[in-house]
């Protein structure tokens, strides 16, 4: 994978561990429903119905579920980008809004959502500007982040000059750059080849390990979900409900070998079955 | 529904406040105006109601010309944008040419149009047409060409003809810009129609009324014509907004 430099890019990701020891409830989702009215007079779409979920501080959670079942919607609700039709979400005992305003979230969107008028470097830079970071620090961090996702050579290009997978990686770099405490990732690796994906999975785990972030990770790849997560939440569609929650008790740190173990396959089968039961 | 009420109540109450201040001569105090320099609303309304029939006829005269000119001007402007889009090499300069017309003041256009058209109506339509072309050409050119990435590729992969690309991609993509242009052109058309009447060979129309009365110092009458023009402008604008909401409900601006 000549596109990547496997230098250790995690040391600058360290964050303030002041409250990392408490592993209480980080995110509490109670009876949340989300209905989208159809503006053209059709039937409203119930994206989520009575979803209940508790996510612990520092936990790595994956959301799985068929296309259109409400994963993105749930993420958007947690991030206060949408307000639930009914039910309640608290994050660290506060409303998602308060947490958002404290800039605790980092989001990788399902589409890369890059700003056309900014070069790749400046796209990655953007959240740091919002944080009021110093220019020199920004520059250093952007460089490290682009190195991490293998796009250092493309820093001065504009988004339209990048391939789909490259754009997605820019989105990942951007979200990680600000060291968010709560990381919401919506199918971040879907447009990546298996090798880039595996590399980024390992990198992500390393960062997570070091910094004790809470990660909510949407994916369609069951193996990826098992490999990364403490817990896998399976949603069922129309309307979206939690159909299964699977604890993954594989030892950490995990490496590629653990993917070959029978336990790993057991988990995959278990999840696949919970899927099919839908 | 609640929003709708809010949308009417807020501007209306603000308007009432302004009118009250005006009526209470606060605005006069601010500007150091005597009431006869800037008539108060009640006097405008009184004058207007006294001359209502004539005002309506004058309004219709102006609005007819403005609307016809608006339509023709918008069509011409749009066609120029289409030509510039379909024949980028040769057509593009047309945009500059048509934009340039905006630099010719109505004061100069009107006498020229007076020569070309015998009737006051024709002259008015001519002036308004010229005034409306530029905004439409420039905006619709933007709309016809600012396509989302790969939108055109999709068409090309099906070997869509230029005509199909135009009607199925460019035109719908352009609709929001067309509305933007119309929003600019509605007041511009009314104003152009009015100013053209300063020079028109007739003694009717809002423009004539405004000029004739203001020049004679009959401010209340002059301002009642301005009020009529504003009402027409606001009604037309609202109409455009309503049509827009229906026509491009898929657009980000309407969500």
């Amino acid at each position, binding site marked *: 994978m000549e596109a990547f430099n496997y230098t250790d890019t995690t040391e600058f990701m360290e964050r303030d561990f002041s409250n990392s020891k408490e592993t209480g409830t980080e995110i509490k989702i109670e009876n949340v429903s989300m209905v989208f009215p159809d503006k053209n007079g059709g039937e409203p779409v119930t994206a989520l119905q009575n979803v209940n979920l508790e996510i612990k501080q520092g936990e790595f959670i994956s959301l799985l579920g068929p296309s259109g079942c409400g994963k993105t919607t749930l993420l*958007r609700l947690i991030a206060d980008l949408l307000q639930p039709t009914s039910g309640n979400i608290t994050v660290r005992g506060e409303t998602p809004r308060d947490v*958002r*305003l404290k*800039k605790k*979230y980092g*989001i990788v*969107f399902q589409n890369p*959502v890059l*700003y*056309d*008028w900014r070069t790749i470097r400046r796209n990655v830079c953007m959240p740091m500007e*919002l*944080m009021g970071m110093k220019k020199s620090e920004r520059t250093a961090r952007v460089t490290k982040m682009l190195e991490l996702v293998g796009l250092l050579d493309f820093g001065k290009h*504009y988004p*339209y000059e990048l391939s789909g997978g490259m754009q997605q990686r820019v989105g990942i770099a951007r979200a990680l750059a600000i060291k968010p405490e709560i990381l919401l990732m919506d199918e971040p690796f879907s447009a990546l080849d298996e090798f880039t994906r595996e590399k980024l999975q390992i990198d992500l785990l390393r960062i997570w390990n070091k910094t004790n972030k809470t990660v909510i990770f949407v994916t369609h790849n069951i193996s990826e979900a098992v490999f990364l997560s403490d817990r896998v939440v399976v949603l069922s569609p129309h309307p979206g409900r939690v159909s299964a929650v699977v604890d993954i008790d594989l030892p950490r740190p995990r490496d590629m070998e653990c993917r070959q173990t029978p336990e790993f396959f057991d988990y995959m089968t278990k999840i696949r079955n919970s899927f099919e039961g839908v | 529904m609640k929003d709708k009420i*809010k*949308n009417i109540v*807020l*501007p209306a109450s603000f*308007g009432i406040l302004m009118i009250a201040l005006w009526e209470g001569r606060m605005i006069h105090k601010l500007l150091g105006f005597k009431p006869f*320099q800037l008539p108060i609303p009640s006097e405008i309304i009184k004058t207007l109601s006294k001359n209502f029939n004539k005002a309506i006829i004058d309004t219709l005269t102006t609005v007819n010309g403005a609307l016809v000119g608006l339509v023709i001007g918008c069509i011409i402007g749009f066609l120029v944008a289409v030509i510039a889009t379909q024949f*980028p*090499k*040769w057509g*593009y*300069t047309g945009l*500059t040419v048509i*934009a*340039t*017309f905006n*630099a*010719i*003041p*109505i*004061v*100069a256009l009107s006498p*020229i149009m007076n020569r070309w058209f015998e009737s006051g109506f024709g002259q008015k339509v001519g002036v308004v047409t010229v005034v409306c072309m*530029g*905004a439409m050409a420039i*905006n619709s050119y*933007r709309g016809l*060409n*600012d396509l989302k990435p790969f939108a055109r590729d999709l068409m090309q992969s099906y070997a869509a003809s230029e005509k199909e690309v135009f009607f199925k991609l460019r035109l719908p993509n352009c609709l*929001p*810009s067309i509305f*933007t242009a119309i929003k*600019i052109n*509605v*007041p511009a058309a009314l*104003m152009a129609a*009015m100013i053209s009447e300063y020079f028109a060979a007739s003694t009717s129309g809002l423009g004539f009324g405004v000029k004739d009365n*203001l*020049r004679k110092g009959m401010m209340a009458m002059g301002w009642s014509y*301005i009020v009529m023009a*504003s009402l027409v*402008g*606001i009604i037309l604008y609202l109409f455009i907004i309503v049509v827009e909401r229906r026509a491009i409900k898929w657009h*980000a*601006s309407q*969500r």
Partner: protein
Amino acid sequence: MISKKERLRVNIVWVIGIFLVWELGAFFLAGVLNDPMADAKLPYLHTIFWVIIQNFSELLGAAGLTFSRAILGFILGAGVGFLLAIVMSLSKTVEKIAFPYLIFSQMVPVLGLAPIIFNLVRDMNTSRTIIAAYITFFPVSVNMLSGLTSVDNEKKELMYSYAAGKKSIYFKLMIPYSLPYLFAGLKIAAPMSVTASILVDMLGSSGGIGVKLLYSLYSGTKDMFWASVFTSAAMGIISYSIILILEKKFIPWKKEVVQKEGA
């Protein structure tokens, strides 16, 4: 992408084309139809040019005066239009409240406006600039606003997710996104500012193309009238071209789109 050289060639062909069509039209009117008013309807272009050449320095001086005022009016008008659009985009309520008044403002002719503005600022020169700006701001405002309201939800959500302040949202997202729309507005407003400046010339100014225009119109000197009209058109082209150049400078990320058009 059409090369600069080719663009120049195309433009030359256009100029020649317009010249020929005009001359033919003028000939048709004067020579074939024998229209007695031919010199008022469509005078020969070469005679207009001849008048322009003869009075070149005079016209240039007048144009300079008008154009400098146009620039001032344009900057002020575009600035106000831009700010108004921002304010209106900040809240739908403000937009709803403001729009009837904006329309109303557009319906007050200079004749009624001039005394009000003068009484407000008590200085004729300032009044002139304000009136010129007043005439120019509307298209900028409407275009900018339509840009601001067209921003994709996703792009905004990215900003929200970082709890970006209003200022950041505007400077980093809304305004850059709306630049193409803004420039469309500026392209409309730039030639209009020339018109506005000419109109303001007529408010008792003692120089400028507007005065030339009015005098020649009134005194029946047709050649000079058309020469003034052409001078104002030329100023329109210049102002439009300036905006085009600025647009290329400020919107580098649109290059690809431009390229495709040429294909």
